[in-house]
């Protein structure tokens, strides 16, 4: 290919006359692979360290007693940290909350995203502006997002939602106190809906228009077109969205930290927040590490499927 330092391993002219029938040491140019390896190495080395070092440390910490306030005492205690983490009274709540959060946000964003993408699939006046407005929530800093909702929208006295509730004669809801997890779900879903929509809009653009025209000529109504043409085509991108969101949403933290603080009690604590509580509020690095490993395992399971799907796409 390019600028290869060729090294022939034998003389040329003479060899052709006396080439033996089975010639194992066949002369050929050997390209140098030094340059490409050198270019790759900074990225590979840094990412390798980024992957291995935290993982190794987490495993190590999870097996010892380690309190960040008393770094001196560290003895091997086997699986005690895991036991402690799992027997934490908040543990199962956190698991349930995590799954609820994940499931709800994914459901809202996928269904909403597909609906929105289909809605803006055909041209209409102002479509460009609509796209820009729809994508905006995704680029908002998560803490801004959180406070925006907590104060502007969800405040039970002055918030916009409260005002709207009053217009309909209903009692305003104290979102943060009465429905903490739902509040977090709303915030996160609002932020990730544009992401899903954008993905589906992109996927729809690659849809074969002639197929749709043929179906229309065959007499298919819109719902039938949806079922037989749109949804199967979107199947792959829906899978991608679900997997990506799972991986990123396992770590939802900023919104909870900024608004409910995991509460009241542990009503809006998810696994990520529980780990944070153990690590930086209780300063128990050992237990936190045990919990973190669980989260990593969960994420890895999803990642395996995602990697396989991506791999098929790379050539």
């Amino acid at each position: 290919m390019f600028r290869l330092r060729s090294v022939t391993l034998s003389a040329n002219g003479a060899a052709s006359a006396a080439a033996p029938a089975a010639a194992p040491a066949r002369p050929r140019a050997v390209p140098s692979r030094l340059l490409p390896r050198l270019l790759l190495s900074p990225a590979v080395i840094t990412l390798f360290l980024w992957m291995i070092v935290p993982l190794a440390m987490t495993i190590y910490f999870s097996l010892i007693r380690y309190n960040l306030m008393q770094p001196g005492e560290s003895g091997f205690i086997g699986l005690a940290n895991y036991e402690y983490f799992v027997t934490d009274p908040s543990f199962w709540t956190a698991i349930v909350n995590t799954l609820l959060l994940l499931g709800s946000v994914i459901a809202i964003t996928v269904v909403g995203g597909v609906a929105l993408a289909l809605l803006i699939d055909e041209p209409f006046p102002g479509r460009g502006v609509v796209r820009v407005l729809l994508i905006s929530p995704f680029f908002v800093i998560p803490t801004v997002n959180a406070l925006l909702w907590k104060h502007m929208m969800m405040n039970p006295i002055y918030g916009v939602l409260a005002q709207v509730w009053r217009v309909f004669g209903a009692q305003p809801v104290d979102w943060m106190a009465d429905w903490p997890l739902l509040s977090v779900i709303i915030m996160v879903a609002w932020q990730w809906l544009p992401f899903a929509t954008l993905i589906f809009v992109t996927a729809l653009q690659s849809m074969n228009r002639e197929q749709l025209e043929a179906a229309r000529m065959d007499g298919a109504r819109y719902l039938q077109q949806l079922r037989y043409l749109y949804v199967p085509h979107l199947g792959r991108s829906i899978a991608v969205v679900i997997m990506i969101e799972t991986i990123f949403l396992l770590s939802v933290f900023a919104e909870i930290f900024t608004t409910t603080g995991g509460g009241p009690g542990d009503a809006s604590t998810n696994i990520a927040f529980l780990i944070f509580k153990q690590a930086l509020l209780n300063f128990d690095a050992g237990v936190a590490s045990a919990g973190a490993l669980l989260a990593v395992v969960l994420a890895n399971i999803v990642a395996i499927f995602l990697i396989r799907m991506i791999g098929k796409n790379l050539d």
Partner: protein
Amino acid sequence: MAPKPPVTAAFVGRAIAAWLVTLVIFFPLGWLVLTSFKTELQAIAVPPLLFFKPTLANFAEVQQRSDYLLYATNSVITSVTSTLLGLAIAFPAAYSMAFFRSKRTRDVLMWMLSTKMMPAVGALVPIYVLAQTAGLLDSRLALIVVFMLSNLPIMVWMLYSSLRDIPNEILEAARMDGASLWQEFRRVLLPLGVGGLFSTGLLCLVLAWNEAFWSLNLTSAKAGTLATMIASYSSPEGLFWAKLSCASFMAIAPIVVFGWFSQRQLVQGLTFGAVK
């Protein structure tokens, strides 16, 4: 030029529905922007004020708070530096994989992408401990390193994609024209690849700026970014919504605009190319 669609009932209905939904979804942001121009009393008015006399007082007041400028500076420094550093590492790697392909190129690339799939919370304890041990808690350096590492897989992937779009024959033509490796790089590859560099950088700038997990956990008073500042925003005088809106508006406005220009990169970068 495609023919304009016929103005049927379905068409009108669709347009109205689309606009309605869009306005509802965008409303919170729009409300945030509006509130930035209100006084505190107007901000908590019941019923909420849609029409009011706007004021720029909030902007001045927020600027005067010295910690706002500090946090803003930190955001700029951490996101820009981490992006530039990341590009400097990612570009040679992407170049190597795009033009010196080997049997293992695909595997290396997928491995790099997989490191992005590790949830941030999984690395919280070790990174915190490492930062603490190195005395780097509440330091911009720690954030720069972590942001860079978080975005590196995306950068490599996107630069690789854009470099692969450059036909190899153009580089061969440069060689035939007598270009040395450096000249080929400087006069042909770089001009053609600079678009990809720029759009990748923009996306990663946005992602670093919005990064809240590590900012909240690794920093406090000195190296906090706008993300952390907003999180702890409260005014000792009590009423603070208008100022909060204003500070938030200033914190997110440029990035949201950058985001508008990064849509295509977002799809490519965050789905790792799985959606075309």
